[in-house]
């Protein structure tokens, strides 16, 4: 089942994309902070050596007869010999600021230090002789010969090794970050592949199915795919229902139409053998009646099939108006049988539903009442709308015994004692349409003693989609074909 959509994408690629985007952000932030953290740590480590050098010089700083005296120890500068072989500068100045020895132009601290309150030792960055340098300024107290105060020793070192170490630490972080990213990506790729494997099984299982196999999918799938499989299953169920309905319609239709067509054939053959024009005319009249009956049967089969299928246009309808229209449409037939067909009740009964189906339902109700009540009967339709909308059809005919009432909803069921023609689809259609509107159909005894068909729309406003009834098992055996046309006893002038 491959459906090519114009925009295809891969879960794996999308998940990995988001994963890497997220990781990239986290890692970039991590690298930036770790670089500055490293720099600080590296600085504080090397600053200690710088301070040791300055302290070694400070120890050899004193006041002699000729003034401040300093003897730079060999180790003071040699200890700064590092692997990156940084350049080294130093200077010593007397308490009065007079440079004594070393690089006299070595930069001073950025702000006024050497004053009281400045940190001692004081570390700072500067540029000297075209290079970035780290400087320590150390003040040391000297006294002697009427001279006392703080001599300042400054030792500077180019940043080469510090930068090299900070960079190598950063490189290590970068390498580890890449290792983590790659293994994370690999793990995610593997995880997604394993996670999607049940879908592959599902696809294979569905692929193996025959085209008409619409059983629900019962495979074990990950939690995330349960809703999808549920939706697929419910779709399969609907397809199954549709298929069943279609099969039933086809078998019903062929079954139901076979008999009247056979009758027609017999009648035509009889008519063809006749010589007497009057008899031929009479035969034609009978054929006409049979054709009309067959046509009605076909119509009913179609409307039943339509009711079973998904209703089409769902809208706001007025049940009262639909009923009035149906009553007036059926009035000629009622008059033909001298039946008093009447409507009472609300002027309007708003409802959500399918106008065509509801019309069909009411026509079938009236048709049913007219068909099974004797001449001169009274048929009354009534609509009440309170919380629920209720439509009742009362007649004063023979009624249906309580124990048979459920039976008449089956398709093609006609009660044996019934003498009238019909195929037994009427109430089945009513039932299907009512159910698809969420309404309930009950058969009761009318106050006049006849049959009352009561349809209750459970809420006055049906909201949401129409509910499809589950199809009933076919009950073909009970369907009786319309009585075979007999030339003698067929009543005339009765249409349906």
């Amino acid at each position, binding site marked *: 089942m491959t459906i090519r959509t114009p925009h295809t994408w891969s879960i794996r690629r999308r998940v990995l994309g988001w994963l890497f985007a997220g990781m990239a952000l986290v890692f970039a932030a991590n690298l930036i902070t770790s670089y500055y953290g490293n720099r600080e740590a590296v600085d504080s480590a090397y600053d200690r050596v710088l301070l040791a050098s300055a302290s070694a010089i400070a120890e050899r700083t004193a006041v002699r007869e000729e003034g401040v005296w300093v003897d*730079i120890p060999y180790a*003071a500068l040699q200890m700064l010999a590092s692997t990156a072989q940084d350049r080294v500068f130093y200077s010593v100045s007397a308490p009065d600021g007079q440079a004594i020895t070393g690089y006299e132009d070595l930069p001073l601290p950025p702000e006024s230090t050497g004053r009281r309150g400045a940190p001692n030792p004081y570390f700072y960055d500067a540029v000297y002789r075209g290079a970035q340098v780290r400087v320590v300024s150390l003040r040391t107290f000297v006294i002697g010969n009427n001279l006392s105060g703080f001599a300042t020793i400054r030792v500077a070192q180019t940043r080469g090794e510090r930068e090299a170490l900070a960079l190598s630490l950063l490189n290590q972080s970068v390498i580890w970050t890449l290792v983590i990213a790659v293994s994370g990506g690999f793990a995610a790729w593997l995880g997604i592949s394993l996670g999607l494997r049940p879908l592959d099984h599902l696809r294979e299982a569905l692929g193996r199915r025959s085209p008409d196999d619409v059983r629900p999918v019962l495979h074990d799938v990950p939690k995330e795919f349960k809703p999808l499989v549920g939706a697929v299953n419910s779709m399969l169920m609907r397809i199954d229902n549709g298929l069943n309905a279609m099969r039933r319609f086809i078998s019903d239709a062929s079954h139901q139409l076979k008999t009247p067509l056979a009758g027609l054939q017999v009648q035509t053959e009889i008519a063809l053998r006749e010589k007497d024009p009057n008899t031929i005319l009479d035969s034609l009249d009978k054929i006409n009646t049979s054709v009309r009956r067959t046509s009605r049967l076909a119509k009913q089969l179609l409307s039943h099939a339509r009711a079973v299928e998904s209703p089409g246009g769902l809208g706001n309808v007025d049940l009262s108006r639909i009923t009035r229209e149906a009553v007036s449409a059926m009035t000629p037939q009622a008059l033909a049988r001298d039946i008093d067909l009447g409507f009472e009740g609300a002027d309007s009964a708003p409802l959500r539903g399918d106008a065509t189906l509801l019309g069909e339902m009411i026509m079938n109700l009236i048709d049913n009442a007219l068909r099974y009540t004797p001449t001169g009967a009274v048929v009354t339709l009534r609509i009440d709308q309170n919380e629920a909308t209720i439509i009742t059809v009362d007649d004063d005919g023979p009624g249906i015994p309580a124990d048979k009432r459920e039976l008449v909803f089956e398709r093609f069921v006609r009660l044996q004692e019934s003498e009238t023609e019909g195929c037994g689809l009427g109430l089945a259609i009513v039932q299907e349409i009512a159910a698809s509107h969420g309404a309930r159909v009950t058969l009761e005894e009318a106050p006049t003693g006849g049959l009352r068909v009561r349809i209750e729309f459970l809420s006055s406003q049906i909201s949401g989609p129409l509910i499809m009834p589950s199809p009933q098992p076919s009950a073909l055996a009970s369907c009786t074909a319309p009585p075979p046309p007999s030339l003698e006893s067929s009543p005339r002038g009765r249409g349906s």
Partner: protein
Amino acid sequence: MHWGNKMRWLIALAATVSFLSPALAELVAFESEVADPQTLVIYSSTDTERMVHLLNAFQRLHPNVRIEYHLLDTLDIYRRASSEMDDGKPTGDLLLSSAMDLQIKLVNDGYAANHSSVETDTLPDWANWRNQAFGFTYEPAVMVYNKALVPQLAEVTTRFDLAQSLTFDVGYLRNRIVTYDPERSGLGYLFGTHDAIQSEDFWYLARSLGDMRVGLETSSATMIDKVSSGEALIAYNVLGSYARARVRENPDLAITIPSDYCLVMSRIALISRTARNPEAAGLFIDFLLSREGQKLIANAASLYSLRDDIQGEATAANLRQAAQGPLIPIRLGPGLLVYLDKMKRREFLARWRRAMARE
């Protein structure tokens, strides 16, 4: 002199030749036979005679290089190179000097350019600083004595022995011992200060030398001359490279490698920051450090090769074999700046003068 026919003496110029100033100023050009050669300017403190084989061999490898070889005093190399670079004037592309401290100061003060190659990578740590200063020789500071006149000086192998002899073998070395003058000779100052770093015994020796009215000279050659003529009996802290050649000529002379420890100095090559031909300078450094260059240093130049994989007379390997005690090479690094400190220098020289002024 017969130094190969393609080399000609061009100028032998002495700006000021006086008896008081031994400062050299000599320029020799080694012409190229190529039509449009590039010029490599070398400021060097090593005698032209010792370098000529190296220069000729280099030109055989790189015939398109014309070499201007300026023979200068070590202090002149330092002063000229730094002031020429400060003033933006053309200067030597390559500076070769035996004043290790001054060369290190040039590097530390930012006057040197980077250079690295397969050859520089083979150098030991102590002989390469910042890939800017490269040691290319391995020259011991030794004692030379006249064994014809005083064979018993063979027994004197340490500084302590020498001081004892000066103190107790009363008189015979009076006025007949010579050493470098640290006040007038950069190399003498370098050896003296590093002796002082090694041991306090040095000051005992210095006082003894002062007692015996040591003769203070400015070059190894002069000291060896004096020992050779018998004017002096022993010379302390003479460059082994110079002594070696002279001992070969004069069987009366003998060399003692001090067995307490032996300082080893190294001539330093560096490329000027503003060199106009740094490529050729780099090629020359690589040549000095190559097997072929080191072989010439060990043999023809007799300057003691630094590399370990060289066969020959004046090699580090031979020296190690001959030495009874440790060889202590003077490390390239910021430590060398210490004794350039003016107060430190003043202090050291004051102490030296006090030692000399005894009696």
